[in-house]
């Protein structure tokens, strides 16, 4: 089954950066109303505004867990602006699989937590609203 390619199962089963960072500059839990899955993302920034520590926790499907693991790897050490520049397409490229409408919410849960945590829900809706559709 294409949806469960090796890289997805690898990230889903060996999750990178799992855990909670304390103290954290950003601590936000996003929810997927479709299935009830939750994803809490914590970030700590250094003096220059780079993400120096990152941890996430959540219970969810392989797609949501793998995308959180991949996103965390991608943004650790980056600036806030660089992290916010990650797009829906970047997530889909990292996952490398086609997703149906109902599964997009799973794949984008971590991106939503990152954006809402850093900039608030209005920012997410304006920047990525159509991504979820």
């Amino acid at each position: 089954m294409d949806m469960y390619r090796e890289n997805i199962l690898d990230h889903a089963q060996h999750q990178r950066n799992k855990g909670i960072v304390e103290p954290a500059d950003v601590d936000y839990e996003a929810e997927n109303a479709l299935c009830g899955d939750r994803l809490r993302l914590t970030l700590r920034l250094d003096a220059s505004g780079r993400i120096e520590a990152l941890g996430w926790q959540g219970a969810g499907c392989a797609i949501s867990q793998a995308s959180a693991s991949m996103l965390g790897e991608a943004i650790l050490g980056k600036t806030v602006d660089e992290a916010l520049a990650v797009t829906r397409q970047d997530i889909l490229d990292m996952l490398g699989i086609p997703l149906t409408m109902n599964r997009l919410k799973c794949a984008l849960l971590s991106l939503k937590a990152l954006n809402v945590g850093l900039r608030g829900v209005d920012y997410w809706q304006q920047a990525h609203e159509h991504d979820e559709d």
Partner: protein
Amino acid sequence: MSDTQTQAYPVDRIRADFPILAQDHHHGTPLIYLDNAASSQKPLTVIEALDDYYRRYNANVHRGIHKLSEEATAAYEKARITVKTFINAASKREIIFTRGTTEGINLVAQTWGRANLQPGDVVVASVMEHHSNIVPWQILAQEKGFSLRFVPVTGDGQLDPDAYRRLLDAGDVKLVTLMHTSNVLGTINPVTELAQMAHEAGALILIDGAQSVPHMPIDVQALDVDFFAFSGHKMCGPTGIGVLYGKRHLLDAMPPWMGGGDMIARVTLEGSTWNDLPYKFEAGTPIIAGAIGLGCAIDYLTSLGMEAIHAHEQALIQYALERLSEVPGVTVYGPADAAYKGAVAAFTLDGVHAHDVAQILDSQGIAVRAGHHCAMPLHDDLGLNATARASFYLYNTVSEVDALIDGLYAVKRAFGLSG
């Protein structure tokens, strides 16, 4: 009507799209359907879209991971985008699927109204409103103690602009709630101006678009209305599906109405949080087939062009008004000028009750409506118990207007009336 108009608008081809129009009303008598303000007929594409959903991909939406649910979800959400484009909403999240116009108005009353209206506040409606835009406010006013006031209707069937101004100037108006097109008088109210005046007075405006959306182009952003409700079944779609449009910042701030599945983000035994728009207002399994059918109906209307449909109906109502005026004893209510009137003619015939008019017309295959048309206060205002109403749509023809006129002469003969 000029030959150019009839040639440009392919009414014969359009009629062939509606299976019901091909059948006899009574044995040997063709159907002349002039009750479109109550409900329109459905083109074959809409009937087939419902059939296709139930035969091929029937499943619940939004939570399913399986193929059928994915397909049903995609079709349901595609219909929402079709509606958004059709009325030019800013976002698909402003499109809430309801059971119809009535539910849309009740939703605003029970959420925005319940949260925002208090003693001393005023809600302004009008004398011409359908019961669905009066009763929900009366129910809420009893509970919340605000005042409900009504814009009177002029002798020409228009909202009285001076009275509207005075009601707004008196202050404390929090909401104006009016119909776009009257289902009895046919009056097309000047919504852009009404909305501007309401906003200048610090009030929101809700428009009942049940009789306008099926018949003319609608742009909710250009109209600058805050809420806009309409029904699918009057615009070639199925019954049981309608739309409430609301400006996003208002919908975001409104509490939910019905609680249940799909409208929540998280539920615990201590309390719950709400899903994003529009799902916050779509509790329970939605009207999936209905929404898909409505999307299909809009595609059909768009393929004909709303401007073309409106022009066809304007020509029809103008012709109908001329012909009705020739029948001695017939009085038509509402604007005399077809340019300000939707394709609706409510009328009385001296010496014959509207129910009897409708019964005898039915025997000739002509379907009209008789009664108060869910506008009893308007009929009280007109000093009438009942009117007969012929209402036209995109598939009606000049010869059907002629048949109505012939039918009215037959009514008069049956009642022994001369002329």
